[in-house]
């Protein structure tokens, strides 16, 4: 039990240290954790109304999904958050996410950021850090 916790903590630390930069301006530019939570809210309703990908979320607890995605984006943006969700390859296992699905999700996230008034260049700074996840998410 104790060892498991240590392992989890060290994994979390490794993940956060690989993204976190001291006073990362991106976290700031996205409006902090609250700003990111707003983006995630909008993006998530886009996911669920997008005929291309909504079925992917059929068995997903959306409340937990939103918290996890907010924490993840916060962490990726260099914010002081802890992501408690699964790894990207774990989370998307068996979902048969195609590259087109991945891009559909990106478009929905972009629309969410548009609505939150995040400038295009700032959006791209976030997307640049998310893009490599395509390799773990797209399994088909």
């Amino acid at each position, binding site marked *: 039990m104790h060892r498991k916790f240590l392992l989890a903590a060290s994994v979390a630390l490794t993940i956060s240290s690989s993204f976190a930069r001291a006073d990362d301006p991106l976290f700031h530019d996205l409006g902090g954790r609250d700003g990111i939570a707003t983006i995630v809210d909008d993006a998530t309703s886009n996911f669920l109304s997008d*005929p*291309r990908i909504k079925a992917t979320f059929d068995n997903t607890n959306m409340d937990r999904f939103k918290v996890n995605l907010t924490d993840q984006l916060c962490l990726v943006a260099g914010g002081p958050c802890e992501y408690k969700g699964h790894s990207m390859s774990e989370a998307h296992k068996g979902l048969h996410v*195609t*590259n*087109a*699905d991945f*891009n*559909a999700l*990106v*478009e929905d996230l*972009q629309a969410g950021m548009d609505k939150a008034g995040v400038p*295009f*260049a700032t959006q*791209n*700074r976030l*997307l*640049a*850090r998310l*893009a*490599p996840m*395509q*390799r773990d998410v797209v399994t*088909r």
Partner: protein
Amino acid sequence: MRIASRAVMAAHFALAAVAATPVLADDSNPSSGSGSIVDRGMAMFDDGKLLATGGVSDLEGAGGGGLTTWALTTGYGTRDGIGLDGHFTYIALPDYALWTEGAAIGLWDRVELSYAHLTFDTEKVGEELGLGKGFEFDQDVVGAKVKLTGDAIYDQDSWIPQIAVGAQYKSTDHVDILHAVGAKSGDGTDFYIAATKLFLAESLLVDATLRETKANQFGILGFGGDKNSGYSTEFEGSAAYLFSRDFAVGAEFRTKPDNLSIAQENDAWDLFAAYFINKHVSVTLAYLNLGNIVIKDNQQGAYLSLQVGL
């Protein structure tokens, strides 16, 4: 330009507009894996790439910028799909006109096959050269491109660009005249290696391409010449800044061989703005400078390109 070719051009635009209409109306229709054979066939056109990441059609019909060939696979098909597009490009120069129409298909975001037909109108220069006013050279270009490695869009954690190699077989008519100006042949094959990288955090797309070619003025004046009959290694470079998802502004530069002693062939460059109306229609406008072409210097002018796709 003669009235006949104006009519041809208008017809091309009309055709392009007609081709664009049904796909525009179909915009909201999600691709579906089930249904009739037609539905399933259409689902191959997954439209899955992000806007603008298919690039546009270059002069020679390949996916790229306007003047340079990129490593990106044309169209909006992902690794599971197909992208098909057609283009019409018109270049108005002080003493000449050049237009090109063509079609290209991108397969599984890996292989690209393209065809383009270039028409070079000598306008009044044709008369000065004794060929006749509005004398035209026509050229066919058949191209193939294969992505070797890297992904320009997703590999944001690496410096490695998307790398593709390709070949373009070009054949120009009026071989007797081409020989008379010093060209060795009416046809030739270009080989190129292209490296393209999107620096997404900077909203900047950069390409560098090396081309082995014998082509004089893209091949419009034949291949090889009295000054140099062999291949030369030429460079193409471009950079585009993305102002928004549907609008990019950039510059391109391309060196060309100088094989003919009747003229000094210059490097070409352009400044362009591309507007991606949606995944089916894009418009590119540029200021293009081709330098000297035969007896006329400073051939700089407007470049207008329309691309439509499935």
